[in-house]
């Protein structure tokens, strides 16, 4: 547009100055619009009240050996399994190079009779079966996800199927022998 106003090359310095001003104004405008957008984008992230519900305490004294329970933590189920001697041995004896997502059993538990994992399949977020008594536990005695057929072992590690990773171990600590705090 500036060319139609200044038809000759005499006004070159002026044009450069005008181009610079146009560029600078545009740049400031874009940055400003980006900054204005940020609060709206961030408003969609988890709010403070959602973040505040970040930990739960669970009494585990009434879970007999060989059984497991589901508790809610951050809107997701957490599986707490009281493992039998045989389940612990199965989990410890498997060679790490056989695993899709290699991790030793020791790295996944604090006390070897208690396995605590987030009960969300790492494939597409379904809840694997095998916590309640009588449900199928898959080919590796752990959990089986019915959505797309992932099998987890007695350490919650992925052994077969489309899931890319082991069931997540949440942050937790044993407050007493019968009470655990998750989160």
């Amino acid at each position, binding site marked *: 547009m500036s060319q139609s106003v200044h038809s000759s090359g005499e006004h070159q310095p002026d044009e450069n100055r005008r181009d610079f001003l146009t560029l600078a104004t545009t740049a400031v405008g874009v940055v400003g619009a980006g900054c204005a957008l940020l609060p709206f*984008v961030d408003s*969609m*992230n*988890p*709010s403070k009240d*959602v973040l505040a519900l970040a930990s739960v305490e669970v009494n585990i004294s009434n879970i007999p050996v060989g059984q497991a329970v*589901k508790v*809610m933590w*951050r*809107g*997701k*189920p957490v599986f707490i399994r009281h493992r039998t001697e045989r389940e612990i041995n199965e989990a410890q004896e498997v060679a790490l190079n056989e695993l899709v997502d290699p991790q030793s059993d020791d790295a996944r538990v604090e006390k070897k009779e208690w396995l605590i994992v987030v009960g*969300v399949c790492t*494939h*597409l*977020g*379904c*809840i694997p*079966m095998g916590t309640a008594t009588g449900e199928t536990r898959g080919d590796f005695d752990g959990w089986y*996800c*019915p*959505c*797309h*057929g992932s099998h987890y072992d007695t350490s919650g590690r992925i052994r077969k199927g*489309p899931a*890319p990773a082991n069931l997540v171990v949440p942050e937790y600590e044993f407050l007493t022998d019968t009470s655990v705090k998750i989160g």
Partner: protein
Amino acid sequence: MSAPVWNNAVVKWVDDRLPVFSMLHHSAYEYPTPKNLSYMWNFGSLAGFVLVTMILSGIFLAMNYTPHADMAFWSVERIMRDVNYGWLIRYIHVNGASMFFICVYIHIFRGLYYGSYKAPREMLWWIGILILLAMMATAFMGYVLPWGQMSFWGATVITNLFSAFPIIGDPLVTWLWGGFAVDNPTLNRFFSLHYLMPFVILGLVVLHVWALHTVRSNNPTGVEIKSPQDAIAFHPYYTIKDLFGMGVFLIFFLFFVFFAPDFFGEPDNYIPANPLVTPPHIVPEWYFLPFYAILRSIDFTVFGVPAKLLGVLAMFASIIILFVIPWLDTSKVRSSKYRPVYKWFFLVLFIDCFVLGYCGKKAPDDYFMGIEGLKVITVGQLATLYYFAHFLVVMPLVGKLERPKPLPASISQSVLKEGANA
């Protein structure tokens, strides 16, 4: 194409200041339309009609719906049982979604068969794909609102797709959810966006019609309008044809509304959402099944890229690829009517989409049509392969190699010739 003369003083007064009547006259009355359009050309206006139906029924549903995780399911039940004609409005809206996709899918296959995506209609085609994408987002979020088991788990599985992207995946999913799982914040934002999106679609439809009226309608011969004899005025010829088609279509639509309202639905969605129990079979609505089959068919790693990410990319690519077909199709002839070889490949693509749909419905380890030894996942993989090969290999090659039949000199000539043969 001269400006119309308005006899009514009020109409003239308004039109002199804002030419809405002239615009309507120009685009819905005198718009020169090819005189040989078949009933395949009814589905665009039908889709527009369904869009309006969805917006109107949706506005009335929103008056009684509560977007809260504890109340959404029961507010929908209240609409069904207690709100006057609530059952009717909801069933129109629920089945309207399926009708919308039926119209749009027929409309898209019509465009593919008659080469309506080819120059100079690329922009028209692109806007159409954007409408399809917007419809998919709207339908997905709408399906979550009743907060039944399928709503909840469908939302969980589909939002988790985004976790496949490296590094940004997990924060992105948390951002989409507004929490650490699909929950009340997710439901709230889906309701807000589900109400917004139809108006975005409406805006895109305006652009779509604008582009259409700039480049003019394609027709079964694929030969452009060359003289005034090739075209007739939109009104009354096509307004009456569209209205007749709408009557037939309404019989079809309302049959489902009144006699089989849950035909397209999943019974599991009448169970309230339960974050602790996943239903044994999560299936998307029928209109997403082919894409779901493509997603699932990738169960292998390529060059270290995990299967989950590849599946997601393949699913998105299956729609994105439509943007470039105006350039992948090398044929000089638009209409498949004059393309003796491509015509058959088109038929294969059409069947392929149904095969993909079937595979998306079944569990991966089931047998295809009960055929012993033939797994659904295998068939799904072959169908996915053909889907992409059709656009990337068949379209460019057949366009170059095939010898098309001679085209009629004009639309008029083709009409007269067909009349003489009859």
